[in-house]
């Protein structure tokens, strides 16, 4: 029996999303059961890499078939979910999903900074945003989207923050690597251009040569 179809059947009937480890344990338990079927035995020691490959293959097949549902991996756990375009009928069927209120703009900005730069202190977040983030951080902590991950080894030992698995679930992300432009935003290296075009030709004072020549503008400006 093909591994991907076994996994498909398991995930089809599972009560919740299952991680690679849970799937591996399930296969091992089936293979070592007292009255194990012969078909189950070969999967006794299936590695997580093999499982992942089978799941990704299955995911691709479902995507290629363009069905109304797909196999999704959120926060490292796999499950079948519907495609978003069918939500009107599903909302009618099960009612509006019981989701917490949407995040505000400041909350999203702060969360983005924490997500890309974790672990990060409050002061570092404020440096990027240019405003205080106490209230926003409180909201994010209460909603379990971020958590304290440790303390920075600097003076005052400020708390370091990072995102939680709830963060990944909330945005439907497989892992932190799934964040868009992750490599770029992790540590932005902003290239300094050759010249900074900051001065307005009209506003800038006369070039120094002129100033030095002019008797009306003596050097005691200093």
């Amino acid at each position: 029996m093909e591994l991907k179809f076994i996994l498909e059947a398991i995930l089809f009937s599972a009560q919740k999303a299952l991680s690679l480890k849970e799937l591996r344990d399930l296969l091992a338990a089936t293979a070592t059961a007292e009255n194990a079927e012969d078909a189950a035995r070969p999967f006794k020691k299936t590695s997580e890499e093999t499982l992942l490959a089978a799941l990704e293959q299955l995911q691709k097949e479902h995507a290629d078939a363009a069905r109304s549902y797909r196999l999704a991996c959120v926060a490292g756990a796999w499950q079948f979910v519907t495609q978003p375009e069918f939500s009107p009928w599903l909302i009618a069927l099960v009612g509006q999903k019981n989701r917490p209120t949407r995040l505000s703009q400041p909350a999203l900005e702060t969360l983005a900074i924490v997500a890309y730069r974790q672990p990060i202190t409050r002061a570092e977040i404020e440096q990027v945003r240019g405003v205080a983030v106490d209230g926003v951080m409180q909201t994010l902590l209460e909603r379990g989207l971020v958590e304290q991950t440790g303390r920075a080894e600097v003076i005052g030992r400020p708390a370091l923050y990072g995102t939680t698995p709830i963060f990944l679930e909330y945005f439907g992300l497989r892992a932190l690597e799934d964040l868009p432009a992750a490599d770029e935003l992790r540590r932005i290296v902003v290239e300094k251009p050759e010249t900074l075009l900051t001065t307005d030709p009209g506003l800038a004072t006369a070039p120094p040569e002129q100033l030095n020549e002019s008797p009306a503008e003596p050097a005691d400006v200093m």
Partner: protein
Amino acid sequence: MSEYKVKFEVFEGPLDLLLHLIKKDEVDIYEVNLTTLATQFIEYIEVMRKLDLEIAGEFLVMASTLMFIKSRELLPVDQQVEVEDEDDTEDPRWELIRQLVEYKKFKDAAAQLQVFELEQENIFPRVPGKLDFAAVRAVARPEVSIFDLLNAVNAILKRVHQRDDPRDIFDDKWSVSEKIEYLIKLISEKSRVKFSDLFGDATSRSEVVCTFLALLELIRLKQLSCVQGEHFGDIDITRAAPQSLAPENSVGEIEGAPAPILNPQLN
């Protein structure tokens, strides 16, 4: 003034306002004219003050930074005060631009997160019903007939009879209504009780009969049901499917009438 409804854009902070001003001028952040930007920024703060809006401290800090940059521009390079250990990173213009570029990227990332947030609201996971084979089996069990129950209670009575010591004389301590209450309590604690367990601590024939009558009464009132897993197996007593009759009512109903009639038969 009050007739005009002024829609004032709300900014997250000074960086947000600066980005807005840069976007309005349609220039690249790297090519922005900081002196013009400083003028616009201060104009904006002036408007906010006129409208009596509260200006956060961060805006004033930014205004002073911009004023500092602007004033530096006004001095010829060779006449500026040489700050010790000054290197490229301490150029205030560069510092501000770097901060703006960084903030802009995170703002874009936040917008992307918002897209994910909205998308996630429309995605429904498959949640199948719980696979429950045990429940199916229970339904298939046949109900026990009155004769099965009589046989069972006879077996118990024989056992109790052997234990009875005819020399002991004591009062009838049990009534059917008490036993009904006891059975209801028992079945609400554990959902399934074996028939023989009901009489486990029965001390006399009259107690067994009282318990048995209570059981029959509760079956008649459809409070309890008896099922037998296999032929000649133990009879299990379970709570019957919910009925409109509440257990408290049923107890009250019988308390008066049947118990006195039944008691004489026992003696």
